């Protein structure tokens, strides 16, 4: 198959080590649509935009620059399936473009390992690759309303709103909604879509994160009749999935047998007819029966 577009694939930490079904679904969907993704040899953590950046911005920036330089050496734009990685790489690229002093320090650190900061790297979230390169209509054409019985609550995640301008902040979340709609799944409105899942707060104050953020969001999704939550970020996925287990265990807060959580790329895979067993939907730690019963 001739590829319509080629990307350097940045998987990040979560997906390879915790969510293999997301990686498998992504590889299958990209293959199906003729989008070439090549793993980035020797990539590291993005690194995370919460802990590492707060500890030392220079380390965070240099590691991010190194990752982007790997993609640039491959001669390809970079794509990621994670909002957090997207945030880090986006912020790092802008910092390298605008802060000469920091760029100079990054250049010096990278020169020690024979690398250079990226000069003109393209960054993409997988939402953009699906919505822009593959196209919503193509998803719709192949989906044939397979998921028409599935009611989904969309959680875009905070960093999906990251953009160059205020006007563009809603572009990727809107694309996300259009993709969901194209798969045939029905979006349920629950009113607090933009509310954070609470993942970043969890490392500081777990009870607040779980009870005041996650539970509030789940409650509204549940009341709106969602069969599952669709996310664009592995960290949000973990918060929704493991957070529900913790809510039940620690605070006796549960939503029936639990709301399943899947990544957008898994929803697309299901939509275009890739079987749940093919990409390992059952490897999720949370319940998936409610999704399976609606396929």
């Amino acid at each position: 198959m001739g590829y319509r577009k080629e990307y350097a694939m940045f998987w990040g930490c979560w997906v390879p080590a915790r969510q293999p079904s997301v990686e498998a679904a992504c590889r299958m969907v990209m293959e199906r649509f003729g989008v070439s993704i090549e793993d980035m040899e020797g990539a590291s953590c993005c690194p995370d935009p919460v802990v590492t950046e707060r500890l030392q911005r220079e380390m965070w920036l240099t590691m991010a620059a190194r990752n982007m330089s790997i993609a640039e050496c491959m001669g390809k734009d970079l794509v990621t399936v994670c909002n957090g990685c997207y945030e880090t790489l986006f912020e790092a690229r802008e910092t390298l473009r605008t802060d000469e002093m920091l760029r100079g320090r990054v250049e010096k650190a990278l020169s020690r390992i024979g690398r250079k900061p990226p000069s003109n790297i393209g960054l993409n979230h997988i939402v953009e690759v699906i919505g822009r390169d593959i196209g919503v209509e193509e998803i719709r054409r192949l989906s044939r309303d397979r998921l028409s019985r599935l009611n989904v609550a969309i959680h875009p995640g905070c960093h999906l709103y990251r953009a160059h301008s205020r006007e563009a902040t809603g572009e990727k979340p809107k694309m996300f909604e259009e993709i969901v709609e194209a798969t045939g799944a029905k979006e349920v409105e629950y009113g607090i879509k933009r509310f954070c899942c609470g993942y970043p707060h969890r490392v500081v104050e777990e009870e607040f994160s779980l009870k005041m953020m996650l539970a509030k969001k789940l409650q509204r999704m549940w009341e709106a009749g969602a069969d599952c939550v669709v996310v664009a970020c592995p960290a949000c996925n973990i918060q929704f999935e493991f957070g529900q287990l913790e809510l039940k265990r620690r605070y006796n807060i549960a939503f029936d047998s639990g709301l399943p959580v899947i990544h957008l790329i898994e929803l697309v895979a299901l939509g275009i007819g890739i079987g749940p067993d093919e990409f390992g939907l059952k490897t999720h730690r949370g319940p998936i029966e409610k999704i399976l019963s609606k396929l």
Partner: protein
Amino acid sequence: MSIETEILAALREEIGRGFISESRMKPDRPTVTVDRDYLNRAVRLLVERFNARLCTITAVDLGLDFELIYHMSIGGLVFNVKTSTPKEISEVTSVSSIIPGAASAEREIHDLFNIKFQGLPDPRPLIVPHEWVGVKTPLRKPASGIVVEYQKPTVETLMQQGQVFTMPSTVKSHRQSLKLPDVATTMTRPEALKEIHEIAKEVGFDKRVGYDFEKMKLRY
């Protein structure tokens, strides 16, 4: 050439790579930081060539390390010599063989911080009761760094494999059953991980967070 410039040049020549840096604690308070292995040579030079007099020694608990500041009076100038010792070691060479009067300051610091001064002729307690020896050290804090408890696993895993999550055996097994390719990141590529370590050393991340490359863990 001013006396200050002359002292700095002489110290550089005398201790070479033991001369770590020069700075100022105040505009009129030049300070040199020296490797603790070169402390005695630096102090001896100041005393023998510049007639330096030791005013006192300050010990500072920095969390992971102790800093020792030797305040030397040279003519009208107060010149500081700084050195440090990791808490795991907590030991420096006594300068009392060069300046006998330093012994009282060293004994006081030993009493309060439990820093050992190698070569101190009379290490008996000076200001704390004898029964406190080895039991109570009033000014010594537990080792601590900037990484709070809940962030330690993240930082250690980042330094150990360049990523912030390890790969559980269940996920390995799932990856195999899904026929996913081997992970090609720093987790499985030692040469790539080495690059991350080089970066950490270059920007001083290891020192900032207190990471011990030999033990592959944080020092606290």
